[in-house]
Structures are given as C-alpha cells and as structure tokens.
C-alpha cells in the first residue's frame, strides 16, 4: 500500500512542479538555517569533559576589602596567590590544580625556524590527571617537580609536529625565554571546547602549546596574560604578585562524590572565616562551588549572537512551515474531486489520510535532503568566519539524524491539517459537481 501511495504522491508532485518546488525549497531553507545555527549552538554549549565534568568544581571565595561592598555581590572569578597556594596545599580534593595562562618566546634549536611566541599554561602537577589529559609520549610532572621549580615542559602535539616532525621528543631540550627546559611529555591532540579552565583567554580559543610548572614560570618571570583584579593597596606589579591583593589565578578541584563536594564547600566557609579572624579577609564569608557546567553557565560562554541566530532560524522555519501548510492545503483541496472518486470507490477516510500524509512526508524528505545540503553550505560559511569557534562548526551524526527527523517531522506536521481537511470531502457532492 505504501508503495502505491508513494507512486500516487510522486505523480501528484510531478503534476505541479512549481508548487512542489516552492514547498521543497521553503522546507529546505527553513531546515538548512535551523540546522546550521543549531549545530553551532550544540557545539558551543557542549560539555568539554563529558565523563568528568560533574566531578570538577571551581571554588570561589571573596578575599576583598569592605570598599564598595554589597552583600549580594558574587565572589571574584579568580583567586589570589596566597589563597590558591593554601587551597592547593590543603589537598582537600581528590585532585586540585592552580593555574594561569601566558605566552613565552620559543627559541627553536633549528636555525630554519624563527623564534616565535607560543601560548603557555602555567599550572601544577594535578592538572593532567584531573582533566584526563591524553599523552602521546612521556608523562606529566609530579608535585615534587612543582616544589623544586623543575625546568620541565609538556608540549602539544601540534608543537611537537612543528619542532620534532612528530617524533618522540621526550628528553630533548626546549629553549624558552633564554632558559633550557627538558621535554618530559607530549599531549595527544587535546582541545576541550569551550576552553573551560581559563575563560579569560577566549572561550573557544585554541589550546596552549606548552605546559610549564607554575612555580618555574613565576621564578623565570614568564609573560602572564589573562585578567587581573586588584583592590586596596594591590598593585599589578609583576614582581610582588605573590603578595598582592589581586586575583589572577584559576583554581580547580576534583571531588568524586556529592558528599565530598558538600564537605569542600564547608571547608571553604571555614577557610574564609579563619582568614577573616586573621584579618586578611574583611567581608563576611561568601563562597561558591559551581561544577564545570555550572561555571560555564554562570559565565555565559555561549555568545549571545549565536543564541539570537538560533532563535531567528527557528522563527524562519516556522514561517516556512506555515507557508507549506497553506500550499499543501491548496494542493490537496484542489484534488477534492479525485479524492471524492477514491472515496466513492471504497477508500476509507483513513486510507485517503494516509495517502496524503505520504505525499507530505515525501516533500519533507526532499526538503530534508535540500536542508542538509544547505546546512553543509551554511556550516562551511561559518567555518570561513574568523571567530575562534569557527573551526568547531561541523555536523556530527546526532545532528545529522536530528536534521532528517526535524525535516520529516515538520513536514508531516505541516501535512496534518491539509490532509484532514481534504479527507472531509463528501464523495457524493464531488461526484455530482463533476
């Protein structure tokens, strides 16, 4: 029966090519626009570490003075050196790491490569096990390396390809800012998106090429970048940042169970109270412990324009669908006499309804294929854009399936009303008027 309906549908669609083309194009445009924007939104609002994100937390405490204090204010988005080191050494979490970003001049041994700047992450040993960073060669550094300001470095796969043609470079020397570092590991293509652990350096930017112990980077005064907030007598002087009343570091902690997370929040509260008693903190304790996705939400990492575009595209799809409903209604009602004959010959309302829905579904399928092609074009256009998330905009399998389901679902939905109206024809009346 289905193949017969399909045959009828194709004949009917062929009879009025312009109208069919208009419906297919309208659906294709609507689907193409929606899928393009939805894919970008899907990519940007994804979970950077799906297996682990619920166990990773970003503690926030408020070490500021009373100047401009408002009780409802949020605590700062970063920590001071003193608090960061204190939380790090307390080791209350399953893993914890303190970090900041920067850029260092790399001086390659080969004379064929000019010195260049590479984005760097200065962090502590737990960074690698905590974020499940995959390693191609070597191993991460240990907390003993942190304590001894070891001159060790992990490099990205991209940098390894550039400097060592992809060979195992562990044990080799890398010169940065006129200091020699021993390469102890190479990362295996790691680009969490968004760049969740430091949202100051572009939410979807490429990741760092070199990873250096924070203590070593501070000792050698490596160039630091990111955001810094100071208060009171805090100055931004690079030399005394360790003592300054400025927040400029990110601190992450892994807590494997909700009970541990609750205990950690309690600990942060106690820590704040203790610091207040000591006179270092002045404000009443104000602590937060968002998990990874909570932290991304709080920072609204998905650009407003991208969300606006998605809304626009869905409005567009809605208009295209209303348009299709109207055109299908016209088309089906025009065939009232034909349907009347079918009904008179014994086809049930149900059968006629099914036949018309097959026709609507066919249009949806054609529109879906067109929409998919348009979505590919749309995403290609997005990738041509210079924004830092551009290269991420690709259609994955779930989105591919979603495209087809959306297209066929939408056109079946659009076909429901016209098909139902067309089923209501009175066979006798139609036959008579002929």
């Amino acid at each position, binding site marked *: 029966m289905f193949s017969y309906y399909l045959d009828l549908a194709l004949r009917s669609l062929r009879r009025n090519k312009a109208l069919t083309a208009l419906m297919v194009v309208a659906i294709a*445009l609507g689907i193409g626009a929606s899928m393009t924007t939805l894919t970008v939104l899907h990519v940007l609002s994804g979970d950077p570490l799906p297996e682990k994100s619920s166990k990773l937390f970003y503690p926030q405490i408020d070490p500021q003075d009373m100047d*401009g204090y408002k009780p409802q204010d949020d605590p700062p988005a970063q920590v001071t050196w003193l608090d960061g080191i204190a939380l790090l050494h307390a080791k209350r979490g399953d893993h914890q790491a303190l970090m900041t970003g920067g850029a260092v001049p790399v001086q390659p041994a080969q004379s064929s490569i000019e010195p260049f700047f590479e984005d760097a992450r200065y962090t502590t040993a737990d960074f690698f096990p905590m974020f499940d960073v995959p390693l191609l060669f070597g191993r991460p550094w240990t907390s003993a390396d942190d304590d001894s300001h070891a001159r060790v470095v992990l490099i990205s796969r991209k940098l390894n390809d550039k400097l060592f043609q992809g060979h195992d470079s562990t044990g080799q020397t890398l010169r940065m800012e006129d200091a020699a570092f021993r390469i102890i590991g190479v990362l295996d293509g790691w680009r969490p998106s968004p760049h969740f652990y430091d949202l100051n350096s572009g939410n979807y930017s490429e990741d760092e090429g070199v990873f250096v112990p924070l203590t070593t980077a501070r000792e050698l*005064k490596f160039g630091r970048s990111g955001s810094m907030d100071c208060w009171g007598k805090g100055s931004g002087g690079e030399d005394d940042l360790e003592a300054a009343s400025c927040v400029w570091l990110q601190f992450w902690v892994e807590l494997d169970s909700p009970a541990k997370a609750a205990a950690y929040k309690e600990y942060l509260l106690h820590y704040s109270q203790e610091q207040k008693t000591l006179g270092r903190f002045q404000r009443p304790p104000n602590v937060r412990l968002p998990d990874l996705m909570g932290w991304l939400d709080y920072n609204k990492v998905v650009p407003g324009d991208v969300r*606006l*575009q998605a809304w626009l595209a869905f409005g567009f799809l809605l*208009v295209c669908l*209303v348009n299709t409903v109207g*055109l299908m209604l016209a088309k089906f009602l025009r065939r009232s006499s034909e349907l009347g004959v079918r009904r008179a010959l014994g086809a049930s309302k149900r059968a006629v309804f099914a036949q018309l829905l097959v026709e609507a579904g066919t249009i949806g399928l054609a529109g879906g294929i067109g929409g998919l092609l348009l979505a590919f074009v749309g995403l290609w256009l997005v990738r041509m854009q210079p924004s830092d998330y551009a290269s991420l905009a690709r259609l994955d399998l779930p989105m591919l399936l979603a495209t087809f389901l959306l297209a066929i679902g939408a056109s079946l939905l659009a076909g429901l009303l016209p098909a139902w109206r067309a089923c209501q024809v009175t066979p006798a009346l139609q036959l008579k008027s002929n």
Partner: protein
Amino acid sequence: MTLHPMIAALRRHKAGVVLIALQIALTLAIVCNAVFIIGQRIQRVNRPTGLDESNLFLVSQQWVGAPSGDDPASVDKLDSMQQADLAALRSLPDVASVAPINSLPLLNSSWNGSVALQPGKDLRAGNARTTYYFSDEQVLSTLGLHLVAGRAFTAADVQHQAMHDQRGPSIVIMTKALADKLFPKGDALGKVIYLNGDAAPTTIVGLVERMQVPGVGSWTNSFTWNATLAPTRLNANFSRYAIRAKPGRLAAAMHAATPALYATNPMRVLDDDSVKSFADIRAEAYRADVGMAILMGVVCLILLAVTAAGIVGLTSFWVGQRHRQIGVRRALGARKVDILHYFQMENLVIASVGAVIGLLLAIGLNLLLMKHFEMDRLPVIYVLTGIVVVLALGQGAVFVPARRASNVPPVTATRAV
C-alpha cells in the same frame, strides 16, 4: 465595492485565510526585529573613533631576553630600547610621525580605571570610568585627534615608567565627553582630578573632541567615549607603536617597518599580526557585527520572498477554484477591473488582519529579545514601515493571479468546468 460579500466568501476558506494572515504576521514580526538589529549594528560599526584612520597603522612587537624586572636599571634599559625603536621608525622616509602607545581604539586590549574629583575615591565610589592611553608628545598628530581646548603634550612633559608602576601622570589630556561628565559647566581645563583612587593630583591640560575606548564589547557601553591620554612611555618587554604614514605611502611604510626594527635590534619577535593597518583593526573589531547584519538581511529577504510565493500559490488556487463564479460575475456585467480589484481588496483585508497581529507579535518578540539579549526597544517607525512593506508585498504578490482571474472569459460561466 462592498466588503460584505467578500468577507462572506472568505468564511468559506477559513484555513487558507488564517494561514496567509499568520504567515504575514510572523514575517512582519521577524523582519521588523531583524531590520532593527541590522540598523543597530550598522550604527555601531559606522561610529567614528575620533581618529584620522587613513594612513594609520600599528606595530606590536616583543623583545626576547629583555630585562623583566621592575628595578630602575631594567626599566631604563627597556626605555632606551623603546627610544631606539622610535628613532628608527621616525627616520623612515615614508613615515610622518610615530607615537608609542599601549592600545588603540577598537584594538580590544585596554587599561581602564576611574577618574574622581576627590583624592582616594576609586571606581566603586561611583566615579567616571575611563580608559587610559599612554603615549608621548607625538600622539595627537599621529592619531589625528582634534584638540578643542588647552594644549598638546610637549617633549618635556613625557615621563617613562614600568608597565606595572601605579604612579599616575601629573597632567593629562582627556576627551570632551569625559570632561563634560566630570565638569558639567564646561570648565574642565586646568582643573585637578584624581585617577584610580590616588591621592596625587592630576591636572587637565587639554581636551580632544572625541576618542573611542579600545573595547567594542557591550561592557564598554557605559564609557565608550571616556578616554584619558597620559604623557607616559610604558616600559615592558613588549611595545606598540602607532605610525602615521605620509599620505598615500601606507603600504610602503608598513613594508619598511619590520626590517627597520630588526635592524635596530634583532632580538625580538614580530609575527604576521605584528604590523596591522587601522583599516584591518577596524574590520576585525566589527567583523561579528557585520556578519550578523548580513545574515539578518539575507534571512529577511528570503522570508519576504517565501511569504510572497505563498500568497501567489494560495491565491492562484482560489482563482482556479472560483473560475466559474468569476465567469458568472463577468457574464452579469462585472468589468475585468472589478475582478482584479476584488482579489486585490481580498488580499488587502487578509494582509491587514495579518499586519495587526504582526504588530502585536513584533512588539512581543521585541520584549522577549530585550529580556534575553542586549536589545533596545523597537521604535514604532520600524513596525509602521514593516506594515507598509508587507501590505505592498501582498499587493505585489496577488497581482499576477488576480490578473489571471480578471482574464477569465464570461463564457466560462455557461460551460461546465
């Protein structure tokens, strides 16, 4: 022509009428808001920075192995390296003037603070927010800023200090916008102010007409035109130089800058992005806005086209369906033009209903967008223009099928279909 028979006829096509009206309403709502967004973006992109942007370019570079301490010896060494760069760039044949500077409008890298009328009050005490530009005596001529009162910096005014040194300058030039905010009576020149909660006074020696802040994000909206210029060369292991090329010699000057700097001191890093014309800086800063405006424009055009096509399709169907009735009317004496007017009038009625619903939808959508995105209230003129456009669109779309209807010969009435 009376509306009564027409409305009676429309009652028999409820579904079709509702669909066309709904489509027009949705189109109107989306197009009005989209066009409003486009207008806002265009306005943002076209606002002048206050600079003379032609023939201007920026060089950003970083030294390798430069002293990194904040001690006087390191700072002096860094300053002499910067002075050597300035001398080399200023001696280039195609260069008109050069100023060291920490940032430029639209560069998105800024140093912001606050200005107060009393000592010891910082931003949190509710004072005027400003961005700082640190430069030297050539800054006004290099950037092409218009001095409207007071004087420019002289070579004797210019100090140098480490990037992170918190000492403020003793004199500044500021934008008129900032001066008017601090001194609404317009007597800012020569007055004393306090920067960033400092206790040390700073005197305003000059006012420039207009200068934008480096940031283009919405967080700078509250102080877009509040800029303060300090006669200070900042010393760090990197530097930026704003360079004005001689008229028409921009490409040549940009080409000559990198070799001149390497010749002065090879221990530095300059990459592809290091030498940038101001036109490129502007294009980069507003790329997202321009992209969004184009996208919105394309969507609006397609929406209008789809809606018009829908009207053509549905009206054609009605014309086909009423072939006989049209024939009867013609046979009873209706002229061609009466039939044409009938369909045009019918479309006008439907489109007007759609436009009224669309007006409400447009305002509702605008309120929704205002709640969730940074958006202003939609001016009524956009909606009114939108209504005129969709009514005209409806008339345009209905014309072809309506003319076909008017060409139905009266004899059709006597024939069986």
